[in-house]
């Protein structure tokens, strides 16, 4: 299960998706909207995606995780549109025979999402709004053998 959606996220759906009789561990990560950032009082985050590519890249991310660690199943769902304070913007669930692989793959997934998936967040704060990441440049995906410019 690798998708983006404008509906609220439901953790239980991802847990059920990764549930596997071979698994002895399920890890989950939930990214939530925080009420402050860089000293600004945040009102909400507003997410936008290049949806078709984002879903393809999430599938690829899942395939990479399977090559790196012995995991059973992985699910990632990212929300789009406005996400209010405390609400989840992304949920990751990973099942594996043992906890080490489940923890490692879950951590890998959130780091890769932040680095390579074409999703953007606009922070709406008291007194303005800003596209996060626009002043800081951006790291390269790096896993593309052709080397991305």
């Amino acid at each position: 299960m690798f998708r983006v959606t404008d509906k609220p996220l439901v953790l239980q759906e991802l847990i059920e998706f990764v549930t596997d009789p071979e698994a002895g561990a399920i890890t989950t990560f939930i990214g939530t909207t925080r009420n402050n950032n860089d000293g600004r009082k945040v009102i909400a985050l507003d997410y936008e995606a290049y949806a078709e590519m984002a879903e393809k890249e999430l599938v690829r991310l899942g395939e990479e995780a399977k090559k790196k660690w012995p995991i059973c199943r992985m699910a990632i769902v990212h929300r789009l549109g406005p996400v209010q304070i405390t609400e989840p913007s992304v949920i990751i669930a990973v099942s594996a025979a043992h906890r080490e692989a489940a923890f490692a793959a879950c951590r890998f997934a959130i780091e890769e999402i932040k680095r390579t998936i074409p999703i953007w967040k606009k922070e709406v704060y008291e007194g303005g709004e800003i596209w996060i990441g626009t002043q800081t440049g951006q790291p390269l995906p790096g896993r593309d053998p052709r080397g991305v410019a």
Partner: protein
Amino acid sequence: MKVKVKFFAILRERAGVAESTKDLRDGSTVAELWGIIQRDFPKLAVPGIRLLYAVNQEYVTTDHVLKDSDEVVFIPPVSGG
């Protein structure tokens, strides 16, 4: 040949549109298209930001040669999560 350019996030706001179609000479690269697009949308360039490039939903380098009906996206710094 014609290619479709899609804009997202800060570039969509600065372009004022979500999509644009461009007529290009055969053999044009992503870098050349970026130059042309900036002339069409003078407010597009954001000083200091580093773009990535996608053609038909795959990351490519700026020397990638475009084909007719390609879908090209200039990807501003991603910030999902």
